């Protein structure tokens, strides 16, 4: 392939760039509005760069005002980080068990678990709700964390990677007297670290963005996650769009940071497993 500079390619790049900006306009509008005075929000033609800056006041109002966004933020961080850690651990252990430990019942259990992947999550909401009321898990962060902790997808994905580890490594370790827990922790896990990172980032994004489960399984205001708080905030502040946009920017920001750090893993993971949140 020639690496020469080509005018045609440059023209296409410019056109594609303009299209991509149009595609991103909702985000640009969101960001610019979050820095505006409320009176300027609907000015037309749109002021993409605010003529009067009110960004600091808007974000201060959202974060430190009567809306306690800081608390919802903390709730979301706590739930997302703990869910991600538990989910990765549970899935990695199961994936190792299903791929590197040879036991007859394993195959049956794996098929049962895989079959549950076909069950749409929404078709079991009602019994889950009843079960949670009965077990006292309703309206608690712990209950919400449990809901996100047992991922069939994660197990399946990591199992593929564990299977690619050559069994010579494991046999050699066994001869040296290592048990499965040692092998799992000090041999298998380091070998699949990229896959673990990919799954952890995806789980982080999905949990952070989850709206349906918090909506159904949380009731107390102080337990709300950022997504739930956003919706409440919107209905309370229907008239204050600059504040709503400042809240939206705050809700998306952590994900953009996580995505920029783990961009390669996310895109490769999605392309590899074809996984959909």
């Amino acid at each position, binding site marked *: 392939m020639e690496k020469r500079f080509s005018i045609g390619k440059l023209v296409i790049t410019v056109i*594609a760039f303009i299209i991509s900006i149009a595609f991103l306009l909702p985000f640009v509008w969101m960001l610019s509005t979050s820095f505006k005075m409320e009176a300027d929000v609907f000015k037309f033609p749109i002021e993409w760069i605010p003529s009067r800056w009110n960004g600091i006041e808007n974000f201060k109002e959202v974060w430190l005002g009567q809306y306690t966004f800081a608390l919802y933020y903390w709730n979301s961080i706590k739930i997302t980080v703990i869910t991600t850690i538990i989910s990765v651990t549970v899935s990695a252990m199961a994936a190792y*068990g299903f791929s590197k*430990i040879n036991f007859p019942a394993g195959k049956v259990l794996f098929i049962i678990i895989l079959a549950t992947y076909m069950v749409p999550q929404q078709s079991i909401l009602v019994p889950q709700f009843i079960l949670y009321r009965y077990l006292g898990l309703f309206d608690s962060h712990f209950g919400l964390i449990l809901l996100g902790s047992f991922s069939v997808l994660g197990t399946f994905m990591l199992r593929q990677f564990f299977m690619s580890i050559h069994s010579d490594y494991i046999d050699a370790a066994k001869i040296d007297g290592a048990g499965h827990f040692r092998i799992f922790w000090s041999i298998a896990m380091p070998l699949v670290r990229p896959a673990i990172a990919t799954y952890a980032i995806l789980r982080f994004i999905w949990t952070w963005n989850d709206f349906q489960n918090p909506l159904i399984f949380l009731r107390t205001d102080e337990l709300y996650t950022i997504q739930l708080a956003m919706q409440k905030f919107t209905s309370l502040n229907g008239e204050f769009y600059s504040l709503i946009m400042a809240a939206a920017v705050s809700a998306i920001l952590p994900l953009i940071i996580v995505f920029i750090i783990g961009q390669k893993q996310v895109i490769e993971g999605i392309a590899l497993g074809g996984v959909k949140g």
Partner: protein
Amino acid sequence: MRYLSVEAKTVLEKVEYVNIKKLKKSSLEKRESWIGFLFVSPMFIGVSVLTLLPIIATFFLAFADWNFIMGIQSVKWVGLDNFKVLFANEVFVKSVLNNLLFLLTVPFSMVISLIIAIVIDKHVYMKSYFKVAFFMPYISSIVAIAVVWQVLFNPTEGPINQFLFSLGVENSPKWIADPNFALISLMIIQIWASIGFNMIIYLAGLQSIPKELYEAANMDGATPLDKFKHIMLPTLSPTTFFLLITGIIATFKVFDLIAVLTKGGPINSTTMLVWHLYDSAFVNLKIGYASAIAVVLFFFVLLITLVQWVLQKKWVNY
């Protein structure tokens, strides 16, 4: 033992040795089994309690009349009544129809994604910028996206209608506030939001096409259109099929957009299966009725999955 020949002795010793080995092996197997259980049990218990048990319960509840507030004793078995009420309810019928209309978002999004993927795969500089740009909606929360679009679609002051007005459009639609346009508005957002995922998968598909195919085609003097029709489309057929199936399943689960933007309205114009389920169960507390919807949803998704299994081999052709 004393009178046995040397051969017989060695045979016997061998048998004994094998027996001991077998014994050792079976106890080793048992140990291995236990450790295996230990590794998979957190996952298995979690899935059993939080998925298997509930799905069985869904099927029972679909044949019962019950609400949350009363105890278990008040469960009444009503046979197929829930399903009869369900199919006679126009909101349910409307929900299914809307779900079917929503399927149109899948091919639209796929075609746009394929075009974008082809363009940014080979024909642009700054490839990674474009990947990230079109992928942005995927990583953003649907709630934040919905809130932004809600304001963009605002009938009087929203930027979209102001823009249309400045172009001279007098009677621009009221978008999510208009029963005739609300569903289309949601579909536009859905297409916009799903392009990133489809594009990434198509890009991976494009990158796996062997270069030799293009080189051979170039030697035969193939036009770009020939290459698209005879190389890209056939080699991408598994990708296309996969995106079609996951896309269809995803449209059956649409909920967040409706919950934030329209709540099924105006006048039920945007109600869909999962929204109707949520509304029946958690707003109107009709457990049996909602479970019947859940069963219908379950079978829709099962049906699509089965179709996938059957057609997978036929569609994948290269």
